[in-house]
């Protein structure tokens, strides 16, 4: 079986959905003839034409706004942010218009906004964003952040088929580093369902995106000391799989929440609060969060490495929790 990269999985999801449903189209900067800044949409304009693979001016507000207007008319737009950092330019449109449309006036606005997120690629302060937390407190959007090629394809298909707007956060560090065998047949991964990547009984790591691999590495290292770590890949940030989180905490009694975005006000704060509210009696140790530093993402490799969570930070935190 051929291996499919995380990047190709995203393209396959778009292509298959566009073949399946004439309402689906792609709109963004350089997505057409150039095939996207990361070549995510390479070859798509050749198959679907410029009418369904639309190159735009550098106008994130127009991209998200036009996608939203088209969605109200029954289309299923996929809006690409060239880097997810630039979603901040369209933040107003997305959180005030698109996300609120159904609640305010009963008009569902089913768009997917997707784009490369995350650090580890020395992109510096403006090309490394993990944007989930800034959208969690603005109701009306669903937020997914796949870490595997399988989930990238299956979640993107779910997102395109969803009747509400979905922010699809793809991690660019994984684009070509992750290769998997994928099913030949059509499949979806439901939004809101976590995946237990590794089953364990001593400690739970709740994570998503590229951090699932940091969690895997830490779990493998801790296993050498006979520490059994459960790794939960949340996959969906909103709605999130509260049941999976609480079940795991009830089983292991110790929990680390690991994410790549900065610590303060990060998504992990919400999950920690939920655990404290609903699983306090199960906890044998404090809830531990491991996240990036509360600074913009620095460019120079040693700085960025220090900024990002890594295996050693997770292992140290785990050992601390195991002392309780």
């Amino acid at each position, binding site marked *: 079986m051929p291996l499919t990269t995380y990047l190709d999985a995203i393209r396959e999801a778009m292509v298959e959905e566009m073949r399946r449903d004439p309402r689906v189209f792609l709109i963004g900067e350089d997505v057409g003839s150039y095939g996207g800044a990361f070549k995510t949409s390479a070859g798509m304009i050749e198959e679907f034409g410029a009418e369904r693979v639309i190159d735009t001016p550098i106008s994130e507000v127009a991209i998200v706004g036009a996608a939203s*207007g088209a969605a109200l*008319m029954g289309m299923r737009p996929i809006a690409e942010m060239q880097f997810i950092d630039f979603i901040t330019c369209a933040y107003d449109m997305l959180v005030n218009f698109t996300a609120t449309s159904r609640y305010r*006036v009963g008009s569902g606005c089913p768009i997917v906004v997707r784009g490369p997120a995350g650090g580890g690629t020395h992109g510096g302060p403006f090309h490394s964003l993990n944007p989930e937390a800034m959208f969690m407190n603005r109701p009306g959007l669903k937020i997914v952040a796949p870490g595997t090629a399988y989930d990238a394809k299956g979640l993107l298909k779910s997102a395109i088929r969803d009747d509400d707007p979905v922010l699809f956060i793809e991690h660019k560090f994984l684009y070509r580093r992750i290769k998997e065998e994928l099913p030949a047949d059509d499949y979806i991964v439901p939004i809101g369902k976590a995946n237990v990547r590794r089953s364990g009984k001593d400690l739970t790591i709740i994570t998503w995106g590229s951090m699932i691999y940091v969690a895997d590495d830490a779990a493998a290292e801790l296993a050498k000391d006979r520490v059994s770590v459960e790794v939960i890949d949340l996959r969906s940030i909103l709605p999130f799989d509260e049941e999976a989180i609480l079940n795991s905490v009830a089983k292991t009694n110790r929990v680390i929440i690991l994410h790549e975005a900065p610590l303060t006000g990060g998504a992990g704060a919400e999950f920690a609060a939920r655990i404290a509210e609903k699983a306090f009696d199960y906890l044998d140790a404090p809830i531990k969060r491991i996240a990036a530093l509360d600074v913009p993402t620095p460019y120079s490799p040693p700085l960025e490495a220090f900024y990002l969570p890594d295996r050693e930070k997770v292992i140290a935190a785990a050992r601390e929790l195991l002392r309780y």
Partner: protein
Amino acid sequence: MTSPTPLETHGLTRENLLEIDYFLRLTRTLEERLVALFRQSKVIGGLYRSLGQEGESVAAAYALDYALGDVVQPLIRNMGSILVAGAKPSDIVKQYMAKADSPTRGRELNIHFGHPARDGFIGQISMLGDMIPVMAGIALAGRMQKRHLVGMAFIGDGASSTGAFYEGMNFATVQRLPLVVILENNGYAYSTPTSKQSAVRSLADKAHAFGCASETVDGNDVLATYAAARRAVERARAGGGVTLIEAKTFRMKGHAEHDNQSYVPQSLIEEWSAKDPVVRFEKTLVDAGIATAADFEMIQSRAKREVDAATDEAERSPMPNPEEAARGLFAGDGFWEEQR
């Protein structure tokens, strides 16, 4: 008896002209009723009058063909435009009164409602400028769906300063989308005069930044505004792309009912009061021998009857159940499918 003054009606029949007058009168009568309800504290939120701007709101929207799927997007002072598109006065009163069976079931205010495909109009959001990209998307979808619909967006002198306006206009023009943008220059954005908003001599000059067609029209001249809008709609439907129409008009009341607009020179109010679009339109019809005072009296009594009925219906409507606040954010909970 003087002989009638010949009138260029731009293809409008007598019936059309009287219908336009009906929408003008309906807009003004409904707004006057809303003022009364506001003073009785029955209007929950703010009330933003369109006095003096009913002419361009109605005339421009009258240039669209809703049977073809055309979509109009008002700003707060374009209630007349959605009445032309088919909005029910009772729905508007219910919106203002925050009633359970209002189109938005109490979630949204005033004329923030409407679905482009179902209703032929779409409510604005308060972040001004944002609706231009959204309307571009509506026009884009229409083209992709091979429907020959035209979108019409209203925007103000103030909103034309926003980045969203520029992004939307630029994208729509590059894509040659069937979009007509009515840029109402009503003199003030809240308390800020147009001179402190933009340094261009004419707001229509902003079209040069995009490369779209443009013109400036007297927004208090109903027939001139209709003619300009009609030309733009025809251009859009024929594939000629975007037109920016600056409609020069004046905001005769404050930003909202709480604002006595003491910052507006009295001379300006007097000057524009003499140019009232409804009075002017009716005088034109009388002078042309097309209508008489008796016609307008009939139209006015019809408008009042309808506004009375709308008010009665809205007054009888219940307020929403509090716990409904938790529903209807996403598809699938059945909230929006329930009968209102």
